[in-house]
């Protein structure tokens, strides 16, 4: 029996110790931390697209890296397909990594500039001893065709520098998909792609979802993009999930004042639309000294006394719709 949830995250935390200057080290003993992810829990159903959305410094990327086990969590639990992978190492971790592939924002950074595109896609097949030689090459050619790099024989021989940004991201997708993974962590995968091509890349990602019965953790700051593909969306603010709901509900009925502010600020290609209220202030420069109580209270138009003292829990306000706000 397969687990309903492919991924479960419980009370996940990641604190980064802050480097102190020499004088500070002499004067203070207390270690200070950046609380990048500060106790978040969620479950991702098999076959869904689950999105973590938020602004710079909200902890969405750190969460993705924790799940991929590229970072060690400070606290909490990560369960993949029923198995606790929080502290997995060595061969066991490698087995999990085959089933869980990342796609990152910047294909310039994740592709080796000296390796031909075809070789780059073939490499994981050889590392994991799935296929070699001609068999591997024909798998790669198939994959190039599926991601729209046609004719595949030509693209096989090219180097990353010969490709445009959109084409490079197609290569990253091919490299992830050739492993036939079950779970993809896509961190800002289309953020750098020009708007005329964004939907083309998303379409390829969704075709693979169908074909391989994939589950996606989609990480983005672009809520408008998230709307196109997500089944559920979690909005993060300073290391916490403030609202989590199915896509329709969160767009039609956003409840957390931060979610509302975020949606109001997103530009819409319509010059006749009346601008809604714009939130003042900014996300604190770094989440070192996070505000007491609800982290959003210093910027919140609805805040009252309780908000500065007690942290609101994430509670279900209607079926499947969770909000962390004392007002809801």
């Amino acid at each position, binding site marked *: 029996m397969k687990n309903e949830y492919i991924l479960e995250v419980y009370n996940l935390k990641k604190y980064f110790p802050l480097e102190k200057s020499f004088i500070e080290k002499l004067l203070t003993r207390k270690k200070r931390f950046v609380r990048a992810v500060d106790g978040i829990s969620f479950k991702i159903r098999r076959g869904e697209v689950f999105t973590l959305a938020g*602004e*710079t410094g909200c902890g969405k990327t750190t969460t993705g890296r924790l799940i991929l086990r590229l970072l060690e969590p400070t606290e909490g639990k990560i369960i993949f397909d029923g198995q606790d992978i929080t502290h997995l190492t060595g061969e066991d971790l490698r087995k999990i990594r085959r089933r869980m592939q990342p796609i990152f924002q910047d294909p310039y950074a994740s592709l080796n500039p000296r390796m031909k595109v075809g070789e780059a896609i073939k490499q994981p097949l050889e590392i994991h001893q799935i296929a070699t030689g001609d068999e591997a090459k024909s798998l790669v050619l198939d994959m190039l065709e599926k991601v729209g790099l046609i004719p595949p024989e030509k693209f096989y021989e090219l180097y990353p520098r010969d490709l*445009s*940004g*959109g*084409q490079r991201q197609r290569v990253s997708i091919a490299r992830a998909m050739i492993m036939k993974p079950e779970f993809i962590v896509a961190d800002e995968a289309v953020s750098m792609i*020009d*708007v*005329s*091509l*964004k*939907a*083309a890349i*998303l*379409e390829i990602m*969704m075709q693979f979802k169908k074909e391989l019965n994939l589950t996606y953790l989609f990480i983005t*700051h*672009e*809520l*408008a*993009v998230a*709307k*196109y593909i997500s089944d559920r969306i979690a909005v993060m603010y300073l290391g916490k999930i403030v609202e989590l709901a199915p896509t329709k509900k969160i*767009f039609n009925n956003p409840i957390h004042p931060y979610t509302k*502010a*975020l*949606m*109001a*600020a*997103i*530009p*819409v*290609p*319509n*010059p*006749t*639309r009346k*601008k809604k209220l*714009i*939130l*003042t202030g*900014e*996300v604190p*420069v770094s989440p070192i000294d996070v505000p007491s109580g609800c982290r959003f209270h210093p910027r919140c138009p609805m805040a009252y006394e309780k908000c500065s003292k007690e942290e609101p829990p994430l509670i279900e306000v209607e079926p499947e719709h969770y909000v962390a706000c004392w007002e809801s």
Partner: protein
Amino acid sequence: MPLLSVQNLKSYYILGDEVVKAVDDVSFEMEKGEIVTFVGESGSGKSTLGLSIIRLLPYPGKIIDGKIIFKGRDLLELSEKEMSKIRGKEISSVFQDPLTSLDPLMRVGDQIVETITTHFDITKEEAKSQARKYLELVGIPAERYYDYPHQFSGGMRQRAMIAMAIATQPSLIIADEPTTALDVIVQAQIMQLFRRLRDELGVSIILITHDISLAMEVSDKIGVMYAGHLVEYGSTIKIYEDPLHPYTKGLLEAVPNIEAEVTEFKYIPGNPPDLTSPPSGCRFHPRCRYATEKCKRQEPKIVVRNGRLVKCHLYGDEA
């Protein structure tokens, strides 16, 4: 007389025998007090256009031909010395990353004072009181005059840049992707600030962005750039209600819209062209759903249709 009239501007990057025609025969006019946005994707030439207007094209970029008439004077006819009196004073600029333009070792207020005293013959005390006024105007409390740039958040730094840009009382501000590195809430604040400055000071603004939604929200006029060509130029409302050029239509369909009911993925097929060897005829023809034989052979002329400029064979050749 328009504030700015750009006529048949050609700015190329010349690398040995490779020529990148980044801005190729671009013409438009803008009036005083307008916000005009040039929108385009990477490599469309929008930034080159902005840098050409202030004559700050980096090597190996060169203005090959055309006229840039600002307040009746052709900027391309001026000596570098005359141009430097206009640049930073009558035309100021705001770039994507304020950290590259702010001096990290100098107090923010003093940097504004320096800008003011460079261009106006006034005492330091007067300049200081003006600097405070400009800080307040862009939403920075005057007591932060003595802060250094690193003490400011990203949004505050961009506000400081804008304070410097308006401190010389320019007629025109060129803002190239001023909010691209900022979060969306701060972006909305900065855009609100630009509009307010236009309303209160009457300053004209050229905004350069890849984000057509942003362009739609803030500007009076929009210019759509594709592969070095200005393919459509006119009033924002008209372009929104009835985009003429197939590329403009495609962009408006492809842009993720938070308020739309999403049913399918829409995008423009193909890839943006390599500008060292752009497609023949209309540069958009390989990606255009309406392309005909003529589009492959012949570059369309710019014509006036429905109150705007459009460069497409669908609208004929007659001016």
